[in-house]
């Protein structure tokens, strides 16, 4: 787009004459263009002063309504229900999971070491592999800087190596995995200080790759976390990872194929 057209767009945006789609495009451009942003500020200051910011307020309301309407209906309530549902079942999980683990352990025939549910069989079945080849869970974090913008992406942890990751409540997390030698089921969960279990990555099949592979969707910590420490476990297996295996791992049992670390969430 030429500079002249951009200038016209800025003037029309300040006067509230742009369509929402054009306005969104212009605002995206303004985030990365200091001269255009300065021009927008200059014109907005004049317009807001003469009209008591009527256009700015009307435009802000229209943008917000459009953004809210794009969200799933009743999202806040849904989150609340999800949280209370998790809380309701949590005590039962802590009682049932150890019992289930004991039953499984008693009933299970002697299995080869690499064939249990939560073992690292993606390395190549029974092939002996050096311990240094343990798959690594990578945690990246990025902070939201605007409705559709994120700050720089930081590498905050390589588990089990770094042990813990320090992140902020306003961060978004993206998980990745490195060091797989074959396709494997991966599941990542966390247990916070309040006893809530967070399913960060439902059972997902990850493929071996030379570089780090991103897994799942990003996790918005502000949605259902509070400042504190979250124990994080990543389970790698050649079979789908069950809820019981996750609960065992969170309880510190069944260490084969489990990568453990911690998220320290700061306010």
């Amino acid at each position, binding site marked *: 787009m030429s500079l002249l057209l951009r200038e016209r767009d800025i*003037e*029309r945006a*300040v*006067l509230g004459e742009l369509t929402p789609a054009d306005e969104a495009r212009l*605002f995206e451009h*303004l*985030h990365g263009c200091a001269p255009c*942003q300065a021009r*927008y*500020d*200059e*014109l*907005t*200051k*004049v*317009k*807001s*002063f*003469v*009209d008591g*910011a*009527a*256009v*700015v*307020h009307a*435009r*802000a*309301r229209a*943008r*917000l*309504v459009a*953004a*809210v*309407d794009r*969200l799933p*209906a*009743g*999202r*806040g*309530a*849904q*989150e*609340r229900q999800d*949280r209370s549902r998790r809380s309701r079942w949590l005590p039962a999980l802590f009682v049932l999971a150890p019992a289930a683990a004991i039953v499984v352990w008693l009933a299970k025939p002697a299995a080869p070491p690499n064939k249990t549910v939560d073992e690292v069989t993606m390395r190549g079945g029974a092939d002996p592999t050096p311990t240094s080849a343990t798959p690594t869970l990578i945690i990246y974090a990025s*902070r*939201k*800087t*605007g*409705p559709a913008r994120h*700050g720089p992406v930081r590498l905050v942890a390589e588990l089990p190596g770094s042990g813990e990751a320090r992140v*902020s409540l*306003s961060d978004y997390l993206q998980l990745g995995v490195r060091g797989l030698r074959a396709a494997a089921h991966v599941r990542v969960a966390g247990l916070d200080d309040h006893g809530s279990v967070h399913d960060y990555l439902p059972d997902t099949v990850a493929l071996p790759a030379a570089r780090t592979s991103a897994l799942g969707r990003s996790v*918005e910590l*502000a*949605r259902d976390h509070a400042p504190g420490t979250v124990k994080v476990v990543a389970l790698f297996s050649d079979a789908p990872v069950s809820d019981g295996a996750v609960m065992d791992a969170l309880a510190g049992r069944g260490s084969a194929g489990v990568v453990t670390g911690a998220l320290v969430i700061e*306010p």
Partner: protein
Amino acid sequence: MVTCAMTFGGGHRLTSASGSFEASCVCYSRPRGPVAAAVAPARVDSDTEARFRRGEREAFLSVYETHAPAVRRLVGRFFGSPFEREEAVQEIWLHVHRIAATFDPTRGDLAPWLRVVAANRCKELLRALGRRPDPRIELADVHAEEPAGAGPENAARTARAREALTRFEAQLSREDAIVFRLSLVEERSHDEAARAAGISARRCKYLRMKLLVRAAADPALRAALAEVTEP
């Protein structure tokens, strides 16, 4: 033991708080200071609050209508640029919509909760941009008692800007002055402004844009507006 991390610095004594719950009550129920004053005492009824917590769209918009001016004023303390301010306001209200269910009316009113959410989000956005919140925001919080832009100094600056605007309008032709007043200042429709000026609506739309650019280029008006802290 008081473990409350004050969101805004300064001189407020926490007398009886033990544990994080009470501490956080004290933290967001604190009634004084300009940041407190920046959020107007406007309230929504408890039914609307309850629906707001459940994530209902209409209740959220009702809360927005009631508290938006105060939140906007608060955001103006952190961001000088109108563009950044608009983006921050959007981000804050979307954040409020996301975390509406976490608002607990038994721990305090909605306005202080919004104030804390907004201020914390502003600080986070500034940090994400690699900037630090202006320390004067905390100083003003302790000493001043009125919303930003309401002090005598800013009133004088605003008066100077109004004078500059009057001088600018006086330079305009009759046609331009009518369009400027009706279309740009009073936000009347193009048809209405065009009828008053005796021109076509198309020309009115053109003049509106030209007059905005001309006003922004006026040196006296620019200088006067540069001193006004809050639009």
